[in-house]
């Protein structure tokens, strides 16, 4: 008799492990997850986008222009 091997079983077990873990989470666990989600939203969707653009990436198109700018800063910076 042939036994069919279920290749998705390990993946299912992993998904079930996380699903079950989140579903049966303690009250403090739920609270910290709410904090984590709010925090990550503030950090990545608000701070990063609106307040923290990469200065050189935004100002110049190419790496060579960025290099030239930094060389200028290094050679012309006032004392």
């Amino acid at each position, binding site marked *: 008799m042939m036994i069919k091997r279920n290749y998705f079983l390990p993946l299912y077990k992993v998904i079930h*492990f996380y699903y*079950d*873990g989140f579903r049966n989470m303690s009250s403090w666990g739920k609270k910290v997850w709410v*904090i984590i989600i709010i925090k990550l939203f503030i950090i990545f969707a608000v701070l990063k986008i609106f307040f*923290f653009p*990469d200065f*050189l990436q935004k100002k110049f198109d190419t790496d060579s222009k960025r290099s030239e700018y930094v060389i200028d800063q290094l050679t012309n910076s*006032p004392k």
Partner: protein
Amino acid sequence: MIEHIDMSLVDWSRAQFALTAIYHWIFVPLTLGLSFIVAMMETIYVRTGNEEWKRMTRFWMTLFGINFAIGIATGIILEFEFGTNWSNYSWFVGDIFGAPLAIEGILAFFLESTFVAVMFFGWNKVSKKFHLASTWLVAIGANLSALWILVANAWMQNPVGMVFNPDTARNEMVNFWAVLFNQVAIDKFLHTISSGFLLASVFVMGISSWFLLKKREEWMALRSILITAIFGLLSSLMVAFTGDTSARTIAKVQPIKFAAFEAQYDGTRNAGLVAFGILKDSDKKIGEKKVKDFVFKIQIPGFLSVLTGGDKDAFVPGINDLVMGGVAEYKGLTVADKMQRGTDAKDVLNDYKRAKLVNNREQLELIKEYFQGKTFVEENLKYFGYAFLDLPEDAIPNVSVSFYSFHIMVILGFFFILVCILSLILLLRGKLLKNRWFLRILLFSIPLVYIASESGWVLAEMGRQPWIIQDLMPVNVAVSKISAGSVMTTFILFAILFTALLIAEVSIMVRQIKTGPKH
């Protein structure tokens, strides 16, 4: 033409970075140490099969989880600040920072998404041994993750293993092992993780003593104190040992910083180590900068000479000697010498830039070869940052901040050695419960250990000033030319965000502590 540097921009950028780093560092050391403490407790549970140990492990694991979750991603903001506020610096450091931070990021991601999940979701779902292995892997992984950040920071204190490329204006890593095994990195890693172990030990002892004062959870509290008093004592001795080796390294690679944290202005033989002192402004000056003097000090005679030079007759240079020279015993370069050498390096870089502009390939090759030659690197490029100083005395960090942060850290470090020894003695003699005054000291040691830990970073970073990268780049050159107002706005936003996170952590933690371990 470069616009004039707005010093309020530099100050706000520094203040913002300091605020973020200080808050981030509230969460990190507890994670580093508590992870190992929990792993030790779980090991005892697995070996004995005693369910009380499991209950105890789960209680401390809960506090670890709260701290870990609230602290997640607070360090990422520092990376945002590099790109926005410190763009010249970010570009200049090149892949020296990129490689360690990438390793840290990958390590942290896999650690957090797999083994932390097993730690919290895996009780009764995976085997005891697999769960225990996951707990240990979280502890080891968290500490290894810290290694890469500290390697990057150590490079800022003692830049090694790189070559500066004048075409790209970036430092390129040429020797990964030199960066990884930088003496400052080794000292810093060992000192930092052992201080994290100590902080977590004091934290556990403090919370356990609260249970004892409330006459609750005696079994758990006494065993928690036993484990953490031993772990804390070993860690505190390691902190003292690595602090000593770290100070010796600093005396070699950052001598002005070393002299600043001892407030030693004039070099001497048989130099004493200041155990404690109070500083005041004096009438003396180094150039335009006022010199500090002691109102009083308690000194261990000859100890500083022994510490740095191996014997009490060794000459220990003071700030004055290092900056202005003029003392026969000091044979090294003065800041004025270094300023000249740095200016020469800057001139060569300027020549290179001009040759590039007119596309003079022959001259470009010649200058590049000269620029990256060993002699030029050792004698000029090494002091590149000094070209940006106005006056020699600008190389002096804030002596009061360096002195007090160093001495607060050291005094508290010895206090915790004493606390751990006393805890063990009282516990083993069965007298801990009767000495309620000592339980109160343990409880009030929690804020003290955080002060000691933060003081260490204040010393490391403030003592390095005016440099962002020692001798290569001062902070005012590293900063991006953005508006000071926008940096101030984000400073305020961060202050609100981090304070809210801290309040959330403390309130959730206090609630869990009051609830106690679950049956």
